[in-house]
């Protein structure tokens, strides 16, 4: 029992369940799942689907943070990815074909890999501080997206492309299948190969890792490329959801939500040890918060305050110092009992 209490994901999970519970009390049927036309519908499914882009971005962010870095440009990459894909479709002769959709995806993701490589180059090879290096693309990136869309919100129709967001396979939303599938694959690769350990080593002590023969530069570079690619994928899901390339608002502030999800999940911003399962729970909490705001009928005026309170509560409960304080209180009580 005490073991569960001490697990570092205990409080995030409690927060998630508490949010869901609060919603259920307000609307008892909220967690129900119904089948319509062979597709699953309901709030839980919505949470899964709505969390998809953030999950992808947070996954990349977790790995970047593990190497002592940070990637502020993910939101801009989301915007660029969507802009490129939709502009590609809009300018093609046959917007509705599957080939065009695949072409759009490949071109967009390809560009995002290059953008990630740009970040990686600045951080790993030129030794620029990650926060500064990625700030460049964060500010410039939306400008690039504006250039691509000519400053207009391009709206296109492409049934195959929109399936990314609204389609269903095996009764589940395609977006969620992609995001959680990619998440599972990356998590598996990271923990089954030595990648996870080497990333942690680089994050904890870069110089010791270099002297131990770890190719830290290559690793750090790769992680930024991966983060760019995952953000690009998130951008495609965003774009497919609205089918409008909005250079200004697509993925706006998603970098902050992603960093938050990583922190809630118990990965330290100081780098080193990282926790992918924690990041997933962090993403679910943030997405559920948005749902809870609607369900609980919280006024839009205090929405941010409500979010902030939940986040503060979770991070405080996870703080090692606070836990040590509680721990010493408990221990003292125990000694008193022994003494008596």
């Amino acid at each position, binding site marked *: 029992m005490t073991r569960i209490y001490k697990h570092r994901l205990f409080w995030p999970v409690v927060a998630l369940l508490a949010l869901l519970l609060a919603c259920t009390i307000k609307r008892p049927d909220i967690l129900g799942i119904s089948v319509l036309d062979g597709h699953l519908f309901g709030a839980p499914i919505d949470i899964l689907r709505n969390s998809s882009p953030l999950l992808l971005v947070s996954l990349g962010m977790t790995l970047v943070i593990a190497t002592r870095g940070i990637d502020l440009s993910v939101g801009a990459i989301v915007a660029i990815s969507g802009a490129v894909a939709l502009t590609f479709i809009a300018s093609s002769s046959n917007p509705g074909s599957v080939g065009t959709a695949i072409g759009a995806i490949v071109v967009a993701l390809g560009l995002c890999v290059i953008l990630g490589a740009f970040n990686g180059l600045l951080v790993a090879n030129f030794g620029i501080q990650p926060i500064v290096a990625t700030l460049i693309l964060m500010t410039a990136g939306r400008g690039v997206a504006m250039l691509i869309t000519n400053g207009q919100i391009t709206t296109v129709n492409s049934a195959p492309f929109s399936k990314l967001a609204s389609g269903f396979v095996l009764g589940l939303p395609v977006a969620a299948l992609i995001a959680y599938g990619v998440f599972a694959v990356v998590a598996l690769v990271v923990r089954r190969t*030595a990648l996870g350990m080497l990333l942690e080593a680089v994050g904890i002590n870069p110089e010791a890792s270099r002297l131990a023969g770890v190719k830290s530069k290559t690793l750090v570079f790769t992680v930024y490329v991966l983060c760019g690619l995952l953000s690009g994928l998130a951008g495609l899901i965003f774009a497919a959801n609205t089918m409008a390339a909005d250079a200004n608002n697509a993925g706006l502030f998603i970098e902050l939500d992603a960093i938050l999800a990583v922190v809630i999940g118990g990965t330290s911003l100081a780098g080193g040890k990282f926790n992918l399962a924690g990041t997933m729970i962090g993403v679910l909490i943030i997405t559920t918060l948005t749902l809870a705001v609607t369900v609980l009928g919280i006024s839009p005026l205090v929405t941010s305050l409500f979010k902030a309170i939940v986040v503060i509560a979770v991070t405080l409960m996870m703080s090692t110092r606070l836990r040590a304080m509680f721990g010493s209180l408990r221990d003292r009580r125990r000694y008193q009992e022994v003494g008596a």
Partner: protein
Amino acid sequence: MIDSTSASRAEQITVQHSQPTNPTVQMAGITVEFPGVKALDGVDFRLFPGEVHALMGENGAGKSTLIKALTGVNPIAAGTISVNGSSMRFNGPADAREHGISTVYQEVNLCTNLTVAENIMLGSEPRRFGGLDWRTMRRQAKVYLERMGLDIDPSSSLGSHSLAVQQLVAISRAMVVDAKVLILDEPTSSLDTDEVEQLFTVMRQLRDDGVAILFVSHFLDQIYAIADRITVLRNGQLVQERMKDQLPQRELVSLMIAGTSDAQVSRANERVAVTERAADAKPLLQAVGLGRKGAVQPFNLDLYPGEVIGLAGLLGSGRTELARLLYGADKADVGSIKLAGEPVKLRTPRQALGRKIAYTSEDRKGEGVIGDLTVAENIILGLQAARGWIRPLPTVKATQVVDAYIKALGVRPANPNALLKNLSGGNQQKVLLARWLATAPKLLLLDEPTRGIDIGAKTEIMNLVSELAEQGMSVVFISAELEEVLRLSDRIVVMRDHEKVAEIASTPEVDVPRLIEIIATGEEDK
């Protein structure tokens, strides 16, 4: 209940050694636990005013833990601390410092990018008109520096000074708060003889002023030169507390390392230097005119399999820099390296590792230990780095390697899943050695592998080096302790002012004074 037992224990001690004055600090029944490690087990300890009290013990005996328990860095599971008769518990070094207990740690914990004056006065800065009074700060800092006999510019950046000077600055800083208790945790490990003497002068002066000084050092001569009272810990338990005059050196050593037999110690002593190698022996590595601007002047060096080359020289003489060039940790800008006769490029540690060269840095904390990874992960890191991330070391193989080295090197605690940061310095060093030995190197570059670790672990490591050389490994051994260099090496390379000045065979005629002469004059001829 706990309180009454520890009180009775404390009484026993007081009966054993009656003392006119009351102790400034009295610790009783101190127990400290880490996950998987019981670092201290019911230890009693006292500090009297006007005394230098040496805390002795092997690595992992609990010296640092006891200090951290006193200053509140480590939480205490059981036991009491009283300062000047009243019961106390500090929240951390800053809290302890406010109550007159100042600590100077083994590794210099200062801000190298701030000035010397700022480092000394940090936390007690003189203020004027709501801002900092820089001029007074510099003047006051100068006074503290002069007390230490240090003639350096208070407005110079701390990082521009040698490690030794930084250490003395750290001690100056400790004195700013008018400390009643001064804790010196291995302050001398990076100081040369003159600097140690300088430090001792200051320590004696402070002692005569009534300061209680807790002194930790691995140098027996220093202990006997400065200490009044000695407490010996072993495996987290108190062995004995005695006045120095009643504890002969030999007995002290045996108290510290019960279990290390004399045979083991003498074997290291008896290593016979191989001064003549077989006529057909081919060098494993040849450095030809290798050098790096500002680090090492171009030098030639041949390393043979089965030979131990000792690198002797003062701090900052280029010993470390030479080793780093051979490992590719720094890039050479002139010269070339031949490995088994073939020219090779060693530009990164990774390349050197691929050529079966291994290097342990002198900066264990900064360049070796990956504290938040486990012992097992730290050991397999080198092997794994050589394989690349995509091919993980099979679990069975990893477990085998880890268990074998933990056993062979006697890592304590023998728990592969303990975080490396929770181990003592000597055991961390063993884990780092294991990391390199696991890669089966042909050339092992050891930079101060014995610094800051106790006699037991030192002996173990030196025996290991001998064995490795016997098995045909080529070893470069760097140490500030000339006896160690003489004892282990077949040949000795002397460094002076970033230059290789001599290379001599370690014949019986070569002794410490002779080596010192070469280091001092840079001349090989008698």
